[in-house]
């Protein structure tokens, strides 16, 4: 009794100093990926699903306010936003002290604090030839001194991690600096993009070597505790995760955001005690598993079930009755069909070539594609910038992209694309009426998949209607990619998802010097390129938006692409799943999700 009375004040004191209630182990959040993950080394991966995982394990210097729209960058492991000086070329960042990596044998039993050197090391890993990083293109040619180190590394097939680059160095234990060769205000977004700047500890990378991708050890809210490749992943809260509490700044008129904030504000993150991610590739089992309550969340309702889950884009009454909630968000992405600008038929900048491309654009019915092939899970793209990206104008409309087959035919007639040999297809323009007829056809490259078939049928039907002989080149994606980069394709349909929320992430695909790389069409228009370079040197604002508008205009005039759609993501949450909000680019959302156990218990009964 005496001992108890002596220990009581100590217990009270310990309780007072302990952090607020952490994740509840009984709360399990289960959902499925539709494509298998590949690995968890940030620099080695570029696929969406692996990227989603690493964003919950590792920490970038910056992150996004989860509820703020338009999106807003906030410090993550930094004490404050980076100090940007020297005309947008010098970024100085100070890491918050007291952030620790999850325990791992690589640390030999010692607590390992996150330091500035970890970020310097992690960025250097992108330049390691052995890592074959698919994300290097974003940093190549950007950081002062790193291109020389990269060239030497490629020659020696080994990166000297101890080589100091002028533009990438730690100033002290917590401060690091990045110097760019030219201003790039989008660089701030790179600091919130895990595949580029998530902190990996050098000891871990050296300890596991080639198997680093199997041992993700970060400072983030979760750690991997079980992994059966391409089947199941289990994550539990990182016991050493810093004190982090739910907060956000949704817009005042954002009722849903405000409701989430009101419910969760101040809760210690992460809120769930376990995240189970399954890989279910086929739409039917994914859909049935959700209906069977085997999953707490359905990310992206499969198109095959869109009419059942969201008839007329509204949540189905049976799901509404169960308390399921729906979130429909246009993705910061774009689909497009490009014209090979060096192709003798569809390429070129002469008026008749431009007319042919513009007629094809006018003659293709994207609306039908959305209704039939995409089951209304998309919206028409009116410009090359994805929704939510800085520079995207939701009200922008142009007659250049509307579906108008009559106008398409008139344009072709006007520029001499007539059926002169009477075979039912238009022929190339002739200089004189007595010249020989020159038939032509356009070959559209596409993959032999079930999802591609209705898209091809729509193209064929539309082109037949305006008298253009469209044929298809069927090959697998890797083969088409190879041919596209070699400039051998006339037309090919592609999709693009932005890595950072800026128009630059889309215009990069139209910039002349990127021909044969990001710029598959090899569009090369000097005025467009000049504007692109000018915009890159400017921060977000009216001046840059005016340049983007002009670039958009040039794009529509020359028509190097037929714009497709922006896909809409329809996500469903069970009644007990609280707090999910699709963020346009932020991938690490698990810590913001909670499970309402009384509701779950009621549903289970």
């Amino acid at each position, binding site marked *: 009794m005496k001992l108890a009375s002596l220990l009581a004040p100590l217990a009270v004191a310990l309780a007072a100093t302990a952090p607020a209630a952490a994740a509840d182990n009984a709360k399990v959040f289960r959902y499925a990926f539709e494509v298998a993950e590949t*690995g968890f080394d940030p620099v080695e991966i570029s696929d969406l699903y692996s990227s989603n995982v690493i964003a919950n394990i590792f920490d970038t210097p910056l992150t996004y306010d989860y509820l703020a729209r338009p999106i807003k960058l906030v410090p993550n492991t930094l004490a404050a936003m980076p100090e940007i000086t020297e005309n947008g070329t010098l970024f100085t960042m100070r890491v918050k002290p007291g952030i620790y990596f999850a325990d791992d044998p690589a640390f030999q039993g010692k607590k390992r604090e996150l330091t500035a050197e970890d970020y310097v090391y992690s960025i250097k890993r992108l330049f390691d030839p052995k890592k074959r990083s698919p994300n290097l293109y974003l940093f190549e040619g950007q950081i002062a001194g790193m291109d020389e180190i990269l060239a030497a590394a490629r020659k020696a097939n080994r990166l000297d991690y101890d080589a100091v680059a002028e533009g990438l160095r730690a100033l002290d234990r917590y401060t690091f600096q990045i110097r760019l060769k030219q201003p790039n205000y989008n660089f701030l977004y790179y600091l919130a993009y895990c595949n580029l700047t998530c902190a990996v500890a050098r000891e871990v990378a050296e300890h596991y070597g080639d198997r680093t*991708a199997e041992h993700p050890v970060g400072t983030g809210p979760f750690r991997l505790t079980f992994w059966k490749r*391409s089947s199941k992943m289990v994550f539990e809260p990182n016991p050493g995760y810093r004190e982090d509490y739910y907060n956000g700044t949704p817009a005042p008129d954002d009722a849903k955001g405000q409701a989430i904030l009101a419910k969760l504000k101040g809760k210690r993150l992460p809120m769930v005690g376990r995240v189970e991610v399954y890989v279910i590739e086929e739409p*039917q089992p994914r859909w*049935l*598993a959700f209906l069977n309550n085997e999953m707490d969340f359905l990310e992206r309702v499969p198109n095959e079930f869109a009419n059942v889950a969201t008839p007329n884009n509204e949540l189905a009454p049976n799901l509404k009755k169960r308390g399921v909630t729906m979130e429909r968000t246009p993705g910061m992405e774009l689909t497009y069909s490009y014209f090979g600008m060096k192709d003798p038929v569809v390429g070129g900048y002469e008026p008749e070539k431009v007319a042919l491309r513009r007629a094809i654009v006018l003659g293709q019915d994207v609306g039908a594609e959305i209704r039939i092939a995409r089951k209304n899970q998309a919206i028409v793209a009116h410009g090359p910038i994805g929704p939510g990206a800085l520079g995207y104008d939701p009200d922008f409309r142009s007659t250049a992209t509307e579906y108008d087959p009559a106008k398409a035919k008139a344009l072709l007639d006007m520029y001499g694309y007539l059926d002169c040999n009477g075979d039912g297809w238009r022929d190339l323009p002739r200089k004189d009426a007595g010249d020989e007829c020159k038939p032509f056809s356009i070959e559209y490259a596409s993959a032999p998949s079930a999802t591609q078939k209705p898209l091809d049928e729509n193209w064929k039907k539309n082109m037949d209607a305006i008298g253009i002989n469209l044929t298809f080149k069927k090959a697998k994606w*890797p083969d088409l990619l190879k041919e596209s980069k070699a400039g051998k394709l006339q037309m090919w349909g592609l999709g693009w998802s932005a890595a950072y929320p800026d128009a630059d992430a889309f215009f990069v695909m139209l910039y002349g010097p*990127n021909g044969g790389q990001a710029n598959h069409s090899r569009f090369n228009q000097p005025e467009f390129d000049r504007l692109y370079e000018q915009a890159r040197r400017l921060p977000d604002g009216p001046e840059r938006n005016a340049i983007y508008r002009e670039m958009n205009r040039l794009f529509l005039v020359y028509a190097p692409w037929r714009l497709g759609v922006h896909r809409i993501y329809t996500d469903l949450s069970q009644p007990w799943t609280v707090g999910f909000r699709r963020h346009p680019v932020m991938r690490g959302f698990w810590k913001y999700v909670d499970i309402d156990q009384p509701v779950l218990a009621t549903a289970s009964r």
Partner: protein
Amino acid sequence: MWQMIPTLAGVILLIFFLFNWVGGDPAQVLAGKISNPEQIANIRKQLGVDQPYWYQLWVFVQQVFTFDFGRSWSTNEEVSRILLTRVGPTLTIMVPVLVIETVLAVALAVMVAYVRGSLTDRTIMVICTTAMSISFLVYIIFGQWLFGFILGWFPVQGWSESYWRNLTHYAPLPIMLAIFVGLAPALRLYRSFFLEEINQDYVRTARAKGLPEKTVMMKHVLRNALIPILTNVGIYLPSVFVGSFLLEVFFSIPGLGREIVTAVNRSDFPVIKAVTVYLAVLTMIVNLLVDVMYKLVDPRVSFK
């Protein structure tokens, strides 16, 4: 036995040349949509595909004989580990399918052959023909919806770490559906084997000796029909080790069939070549074993 060496050499050459002439450039795929020639050259160097063909072929031959196929190009996982970890779930499904389907098909075939020409025989044959006309995919989609979702007898999909839980909880539905699909053609085929034997002179002689019909069927007809049945099972056996892609995808079974298709889609050559060589070796071994089994089933068979 010695035929295995030229067969394996042929398989190695075929895979190698198919990959190099027909397959996409893995460096282009791994580099992603945005890459420059230096990056692609670096990736080619890391993968070793910048080496002369003869050298790449020599490396491949070494890999075949050391069973070390390196790492997957897309996931960096050791290829040997991929094969070892994926084959278990595949066998958990496919071995019961093979055993149950063969036993059922043989038993039913004996029965319908016994009552050949009767209404029962004809009805069963009509059912078999109808069952064979329906796609495997339809069985899977309908079976998953009916037994997994509507009736709730089985989980819709899933897989665990426990062998027994998998066998008793997750595997029954895919096994059942695979048997539904495989039983009809096997039954028809085995029935024809039995009918062929029933019309042989030795059967007539056995009956003339006054042997009971049960003894004629089970001792004489069954034994002689086992040779073609064994050949058929032998043809089917290697596929047991690579699984059914459709079953594995629809029921989220982390098996080899699913892995092979993923590897092909990703142009993951180390996985593709390892699986192809593994399958070729397996087919040869199975063929050898089937030849040995002939001798056990029928002592008249000679190895000469």
